[in-house]
């Protein structure tokens, strides 16, 4: 049994942000290295310089609203931007603390596992947050994907067919198990569900 202690106070001063236990724990809990976390912090700070403190020693409680985060160039053109931010926020309204912000890009990073990505992709596509991908969710997804290029009949048909294809237990909506099963057959999912930061 290995045991180790983390020194309670490590006060390296690096790039004007004091690296605290917060960063250490972030390092352990996400797929990022310290440098990347610092860079992410920079990005987060950039979004609202007057709101976000540079010093994260005491883990200050500050949250940025959805409207600010959605404006990042990485998300700006993404049709699912609101859903992405909402699925990672604790309150479901899209207000992200720094932790959640890091969490978001961690899941969307290259190293995150397929399972983790699938869980959050499911959340993102689940517009009405009922834990199923039902027809309504599919319609919304399609309209965002194609910028409402398909006719309503086509949308209807695509929804119906895709649910038919992917639904294993025959309840006419996709549960997470159905979704995950489908994802395993799409080898490209790992590389496309990825945002470089």
């Amino acid at each position: 049994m290995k045991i180790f202690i983390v020194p309670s106070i490590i006060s390296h001063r690096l790039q004007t942000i004091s690296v605290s236990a917060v960063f250490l724990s972030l390092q352990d809990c996400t797929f990022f290295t310290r440098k990347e976390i610092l860079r992410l912090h920079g990005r987060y700070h950039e979004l609202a310089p007057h709101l976000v403190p540079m010093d994260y020693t005491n883990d200050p409680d500050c949250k940025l609203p959805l409207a600010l985060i959605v404006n990042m160039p990485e998300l700006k053109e993404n049709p699912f931007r609101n859903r992405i931010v909402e699925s990672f926020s604790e309150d479901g309204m899209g207000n992200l603390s720094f932790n959640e912000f890091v969490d978001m890009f961690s899941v969307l990073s290259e190293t995150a596992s397929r399972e983790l990505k699938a869980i959050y992709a499911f959340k993102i596509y689940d517009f009405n947050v009922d834990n199923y991908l039902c027809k309504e969710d599919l319609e919304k997804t399609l309209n965002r994907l194609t910028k409402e290029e398909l006719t309503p009949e086509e949308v209807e048909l695509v929804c119906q067919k895709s649910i038919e294809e992917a639904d294993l237990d025959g309840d006419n909506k996709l549960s997470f198990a159905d979704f995950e099963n489908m994802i395993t057959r799409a080898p490209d999912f790992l590389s496309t569900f990825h945002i470089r930061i």
Partner: protein
Amino acid sequence: MARNVNFDLNHPLVEAGLESPIDEEGVHDSFSQLIAEQSQNGGPSEAFELQQLQRDLDEEGRDDVGYLSSPGHEFRGSRQVRRDMEWEDDETQTDPLIGERWSSATMKVLSSMPSRTIGRSRGAIISQYYNRTMQLRRRRQSRPAIRDFSRSARPSIRGYGMEADSIDAEGTEVSKRERLVNNLQNLSVSDRVRMLRAMPLSVAEKSDLRMLALQKEKRTLSSSKLPCCSRLKYYIIIAARQSWYSWLSFLHSLQLWQVALKRVSGRFGTGVLSYFLFLKTLLFFNIFLFLVTGAFLVLPQAVHPPVLPAERNFSGLELLTGAGYFSDTVMYYGYYCNYTLHKSCRDDVGGQNVSVSNGTRLDCVSKHHSYNMPLAYFFTIGVAFFITCIILVYSMSKSFGQSFRIDNSHSILAIKVFCSWDFKVIKKTSVRLMSENIGTQLKELLAEVNHKNVKNTACQKLWRLLVHGLAWAICIASTAACVTAIYYFSDHMHQNLQQRSRSTIKDPLLFEASLLALPVMVSLINLLLPGLFNLAAWMEDYESPSVRTYVAIGRNLLLKVCVLGVLCYHWLGRVAADPASIKLKCWESFVGQELYRFLLMEFIFTLLDTLFGEFLWRLFSERVLKRRRKPVFDIARNVLELIYGQTLAWLGVLFTPLLPAVQIIKLLLLFYIKKSSVMMNCQAPRKPYRVSQMTTIFITLLCFPSFLGASVCVTYTMWSITPSSSCGPFRELKTMFQAGKRWVEELEKDNPNLSLLARAHAYLVENPLFLFLGAGIFLIVIYFHSQVVDGQRKIINLLQEQIENEGEDKKFLITRLQSIHEQKRTPARRLTSQDSGC
């Protein structure tokens, strides 16, 4: 009134308990298998606990399942009635929304099924990960001590059920969490970090868990009063961990081209990105090769330069031909000496560099710090190839694992809907283009689904066959023509060289320039023939883009393999077999120069292609044709060109140890040129591109014809071609491979005790049987692997079938259950109304 009705709704359930799976036991038994599957062989106890947890969570009101609530509470009689009543109201509201004919109780059972709970609610996640940490611990410790577990954590179904009944919901969740923390604490650091990272919880939650685990550890530490040395150990561990992290982030900062890759992917998506990533992979292969040859061959030789006969002056053309000034440098095989390098006897040896005899060498050997050049040359090349082979096979298997999928064509539409959006793309026009593409692809798919059974008539089929035959005939004929042309042209050049070697050279510059003719011709063929192939493919008009890509790759590959085959014959069969006929002092250097020329010409022609094919074509189509469309970046052809260049580099390492450096420079330049060309001239590809599949194919191609072909050539050269007698590290030897033998003999001479080694060497290395045996074992291992993968594929198919069957079973069971419930319900209602009447 409502209350009464509600109460009685539960009543028959309890009555029906024995025969209906709604009963706890029943639920447990009939679904435990399914549950076990879902919680990944967690065993019935853990699966049950999962269910329990879900219930608890439902009570907490944290549950996301919404209208579907807990199944357990109804059995607990009247204390749950109020909740049930509320729930019933809820149910009536949402019922039409679901549009199901199933009763509330059925819905409850359904909702608690693990397929609908796992990975969503917090409690379920925690218990899932509790199970995983448990498994991990069991795997790490060969025998888990039962006392480590809290009583309730011991594997017992009954225990769980009782505990859940006695402790209230909040308590169970807390204890579950505690147990998870406990498990986490007992894991090793790396396992814990891996677990934490994989948990689909919010970061705040995760860091709480982490802090708890750490605090517990601290407590145990402080309570046990550590002795000084183990305290020191912990500090060392911490320091090591810190430095490991900083090393990791240092490595990360080394990642090449982050920004450039991000820009490319933001604009063109994953397909074009894969070309640049492939380029990066090749770059790393070459850097590795360069480091190895540089450290073990070039550097020692450069420190001890042999005396050269005459300095040649630099004319500039050498940069293209690689001959002349460069021929007597560390770049080529011929420069390396065949004696043992030593600091003190350098002058001694250097003075008589060509006619170095065994005597001088022995003098040097007797002193320390000796460096046996022939041996180093032999082993450096061998080891470099071996390691490259291992890395290639590893990355190939990894890539196979990633793109591994079962090829059944259903659920294409769903995959298209959910997995086709490339989240990397951030440029507005590309995003619009991608939406359009997805829209058209969906329409095409719909059309396909609707008219699946449109069959071609026999006449059409015949016509298609004819067209395909014609296209293949054109391609094969043109390939054959080109290869024959190269064969005769190289023959002609060879004879030309023979003639020149008899007469004196009048114009050395012209002579050197004439050496460029063959590379230019080959590169021209490599540039033009793919265009012809594209024309043929256009004529064929393939329906599926993937078939089109495969056919294009196949044809290009055929051409390149044939060309390289003829060239290898030319070098190893003509030049190496009879170097005296063209008065070559050192045929290895000559072949090395040829490879350098080919590599460089290939690069120059790629540049020309980029300039004319992409840049000027865009200008032309924009200005003259007035079209808005830009050319599309042909990923497959470009990657094949990279593979071709890499094959040349691998072929040439033996003759030109510095060829990897040339290749590195070439790749670096190529990256920037291609990147700017792509950004400037190209548009995102319109056709869908299966990235991971294509990457797998390219890695396989890099491994199989490219690397394997190169290593076969190199091995052949080492094993059976006589090296030149007056230059290079292997002069005076019959084959390069005898360097090892001579070394072993010397060892034996110095130390007779090592005769066993010599004998082993004679039997193992010199006997071709051993080589065949090794190759055979390698092939067998590959065969087994492919068989295992095949078996897994079959098993996955079977399991999938099983899941579908079980779905059917479930449906059947639920309808049965429903009908029974309906039957019981009607008499029960009557009873209730009587009750309330009293």
